[in-house]
């Protein structure tokens, strides 16, 4: 393993989350929330990590447009890919949580933040379809970089601004109190600590997977082009 310090850190952090996360003392509030608050260690970091990965992907797209190179193209794609995977994971963990927090175990509820999340997933899936439909690699990289930037800019209204403006089941929309992400007064110390540990841990895991994939792509390209 190259540069293993942060990989070991990621492993240890996630080990902590998955064990201590279920054992540590959390405040048991009203009847519904109870122990499922522990989902904060899984669900919320997914979204944080997803935004981080999408941001990094867009930065690499910008770098590609400024100075084209295979490396920045590969990075942009792989970070978008891991971002999409984390989006799916976030939706799944959200669905698991929703069955306890919001009532019946139906898979979907019409909540603006959910719709926004699903839309962002669709936008990035369309990104991969776009890449698949172009054959010439340079053209592919350039056009997908342009679409990546456009899609990222449209992402902000979709998942941050509109859900805040509409009535929502999530905290932070109209009709519910609280900041959607981080209210330091809202969470007990244990929950905050593990939340941030979770964010770091899951992000590092995603970065690890991405760098492995990028290295794989580079090796494949080297083999193909000699």
């Amino acid at each position, binding site marked *: 393993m190259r540069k293993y310090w942060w990989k070991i850190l990621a492993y240890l952090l996630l080990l902590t989350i998955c064990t201590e996360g279920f054992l540590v003392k959390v405040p048991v509030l009203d009847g519904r929330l109870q122990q499922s608050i522990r989902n904060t260690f899984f669900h919320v970091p997914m979204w944080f990590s997803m935004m981080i990965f999408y941001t990094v992907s867009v930065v690499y797209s910008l770098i590609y447009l400024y100075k084209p190179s295979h490396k920045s193209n590969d990075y942009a794609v792989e970070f978008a890919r891991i971002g999409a995977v984390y989006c799916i994971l976030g939706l799944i963990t959200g669905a698991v949580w929703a069955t306890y927090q919001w009532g019946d175990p139906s898979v979907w509820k019409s909540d603006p933040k959910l719709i926004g999340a699903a*839309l*962002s997933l669709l936008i990035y899936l369309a990104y991969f379809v776009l890449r698949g439909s172009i054959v010439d690699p340079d*053209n592919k990289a350039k056009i997908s970089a*342009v679409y990546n930037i456009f899609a990222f800019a449209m992402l902000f*209204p979709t998942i941050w601004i509109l859900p805040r*403006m509409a009535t929502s089941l999530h905290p932070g929309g109209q009709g519910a109190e609280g900041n959607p992400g981080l209210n330091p007064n809202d969470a007990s110390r244990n929950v905050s600590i593990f939340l941030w540990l979770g964010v770091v841990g899951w992000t590092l895991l995603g970065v690890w997977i991405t760098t492995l994939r990028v290295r794989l792509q580079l090796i494949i390209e080297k083999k193909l082009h000699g």
Partner: protein
Amino acid sequence: MSTSYKHIVTLIKKDLLLEVRQQYTFYGVLLYVASTIFVVFQTIGGEPEGFVWNSMFWIVQLFVCVNAVAKSFLQDSKGRMLYFYSVAGAGDFILSKIIFNAILMAVMSLISMLLFMALLGNPLIHIVSFVGISLLGGIGISLVFTFLAAIAAKAQQQAALMAILGFPIIIPQLLLLSKIAKTAFDTAIQPSLWQMVMVLAGLDCLIIVLALILFPFLWKD
């Protein structure tokens, strides 16, 4: 700056002239509008409720826009594109396309609104504000799809790809539009109406700026 303005005006005039002479594009889209609204009319049967009318209207707007914008980008062949590339700047070209598609969509919005009112009854209370909303909405949708058509044109698989790329991006805009448009059906005034209109206008400006910045990269081909 003034030469750039002249270029844009000339390009728009060129498109308008093509429309007037080869009328099949304009009439093609018009026919599409009429047929779609007729299908809606037949399947719904009577005169629908306000909110059904509203949602049908915006769905029809969406599909008409996809069609109209796809046609307007399809008609320029590769050779002609090369000619434009050597003559006009990228910013001018995309701006002229944006303005032309916006005008086209505005006209189509008015026509489809008239047809809706004729066939499906008129549950509107504030007609003027609905006209304003449908114009704003039509232009906003056409902005997004113009830029996506530029992307899809480079990928050589125009209409289908444009639809795939476009639908997720356009949904928040459509949601905003149908929410604002609902106010034209009620007598009650919604409190955050102007806030939503501002968000929509801001979104449109963002798209135009992005298109102007990003199109030159697509153009170099």
